[in-house]
């Protein structure tokens, strides 16, 4: 039992150690190193899970191929964020150490969500992830923008949590079980959905739509992404979405929910509106973090296609797209974090001008991540989009596939606008010095993006259990 749950225990113990160290001896470097070591150890412990999978922990958690893979991605993400966030957080005058504490507890919540197979664990994981995030979003607490983003996120996320609780209660009330698999069995035996289950599923999807930032539950996204510190924006876009998506994926696949037409049409509606609205709103923006926020809305719209396609193709395409999206957005937001000087993040596209002169390496990583988000050939984002379109086509979702292709074309406009600013020369240019460890983390990201963009075969084969 200990082996299968080792990553959780290690993160928990690291959390307690870091908390004790911070309360007795404040040292930014020491805290960062401790958190990094703990997260790295959790990542190493994942590789020992080999032959005991899938493994169930008392109806609450499930450790299978999917959860191991995605927990690995989350841990890697947090490792990168600890490294690149160090430089960012170091510029804040006081109270730097709590960043790691909150980040680790949020990570633990995300891990629990990824592995949850019960409504209770899903709810608790979601809250364990969100509550530290409210504080992290408002971490630069002397700045108006950050506090404003924190309050907006808290109010809307609180309302979405309440919606989730009500939805789960309705589903439990109708079926008499909170276990995901028993509930799925109950659903698959129904020919017609009772109104309680339908209402519950609707509320559940609304709450999930909020977490994944799907239109029409997306209004918080641009403001919160803009106001929160860049490493936290990276966390929100990647780890913050993985857990919710996986639970939705498990539920849909187990219960074969997309064969019920109301659920299918709700999801298709969310997907279509997210793709179109996200891309169109991004066109008129000039603030880079806002552009990426709207692009994340569009990306989540694409991702829903994989859910609707279902089956092994849908699973493979969805997982691949999710992982690639997480890695690419980590690359983009980490670069923004490293560009930050004196607590001043570069905001407008014009502030990214001549980045190539100031730091060629950073410019290349940033543009590669942006290109991967845009789905340019030779980057991982392209392969991910191809597989998504294939999965959609094999399930004959022609309208959605067509919209995916058209919207990727529209997206190119605002992505290339950012990249062309990066390579535009300017006269005044002072060099940016990158810390060595951060450069290594960025090099790791660009290697993954290019490697999976050129030779994704082995990874794709490995994705399917």
């Amino acid at each position: 039992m200990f082996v299968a749950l080792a990553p959780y225990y290690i993160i928990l113990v690291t959390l307690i150690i870091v908390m004790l160290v911070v309360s007795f001896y404040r040292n930014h470097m020491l805290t960062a190193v401790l958190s990094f070591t703990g997260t790295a150890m959790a990542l190493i412990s994942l590789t020992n899970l080999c032959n005991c999978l899938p493994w169930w922990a008392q109806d609450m958690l499930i450790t299978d191929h999917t959860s191991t893979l995605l927990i690995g991605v989350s841990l890697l993400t947090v490792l990168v964020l600890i490294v690149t966030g160090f430089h960012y957080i170091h510029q804040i005058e006081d109270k730097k150490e709590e960043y790691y504490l909150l980040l680790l507890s949020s990570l633990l919540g995300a891990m629990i969500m990824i592995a949850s197979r019960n409504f209770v664990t899903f709810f608790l994981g979601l809250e364990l992830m969100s509550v530290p995030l409210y504080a992290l979003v408002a971490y630069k607490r002397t700045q108006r923008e950050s506090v404003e983003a924190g309050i907006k996120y808290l109010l809307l996320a609180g309302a979405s949590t309440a919606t989730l609780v009500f939805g789960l209660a309705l589903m439990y009330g109708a079926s008499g079980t909170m276990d995901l698999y028993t509930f799925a069995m109950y659903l698959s035996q129904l020919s017609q959905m009772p109104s309680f289950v339908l209402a519950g599923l609707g509320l559940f999807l609304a709450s999930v739509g909020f977490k994944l930032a799907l239109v029409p539950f997306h209004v918080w996204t641009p403001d919160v992404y803009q106001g929160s510190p860049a490493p936290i924006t990276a966390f929100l876009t990647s780890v913050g979405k993985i857990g919710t998506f996986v639970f939705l994926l498990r539920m849909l696949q187990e219960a074969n929910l997309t064969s019920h037409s109301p659920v299918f049409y709700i999801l298709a509606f969310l997907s279509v509106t997210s793709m179109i609205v996200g891309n169109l709103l991004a066109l008129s923006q000039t603030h880079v973090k806002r552009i990426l926020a709207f692009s994340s809305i569009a990306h989540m719209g694409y991702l829903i296609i994989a859910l609707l396609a279902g089956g092994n193709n849908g699973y493979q395409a969805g997982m691949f797209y999710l992982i690639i999206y997480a890695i690419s957005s980590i690359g983009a937001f980490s670069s923004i974090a490293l560009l930050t000087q004196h607590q001043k993040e570069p905001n407008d596209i014009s502030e990214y001008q001549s980045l190539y002169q100031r730091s060629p390496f950073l410019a290349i990583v940033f543009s590669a991540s942006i290109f991967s988000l845009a789905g340019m050939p030779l980057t991982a984002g392209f392969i991910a989009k191809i597989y998504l379109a294939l999965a959609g086509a094999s399930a004959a979702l022609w309208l959605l596939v067509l919209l995916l292709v058209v919207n990727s074309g529209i997206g190119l406009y605002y992505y290339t606008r950012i990249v062309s600013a990066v390579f535009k020369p300017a006269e005044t240019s002072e060099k940016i010095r990158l810390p060595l460890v951060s450069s290594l983390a960025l090099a790791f990201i660009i290697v993954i993006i290019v490697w999976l963009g050129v030779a994704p075969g082995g990874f794709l084969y490995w994705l399917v259990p």
Partner: protein
Amino acid sequence: MIPFEMQILVAAILFTIGLIGLLTRRNLIFMLMSVEIMMNAGAFAFVAAGARWIQPDGQVMFLFVLTVAAAEVAIALALLILMHKLFKSVDTNQLNSLKN
């Protein structure tokens, strides 16, 4: 025994009251109270569902929701104090510095 539908109806009415409060109020404290009402409506629905199947799960979930709501309020009040310091107000209409 009161039918399950009636219990859910009460929960739904509570939820709607909270939602309307959240949408119409502009004072942060009242908005937080509205969110709490919505949370408690959901928790109440859980108790009703647990009673329907004669299982303790619903009440256990109620305790979890209560705990989580308390944790949320702790952060919310800290943010409220920060907002009062920075904006000299708890009116959410003042929160308009984030735009393109």
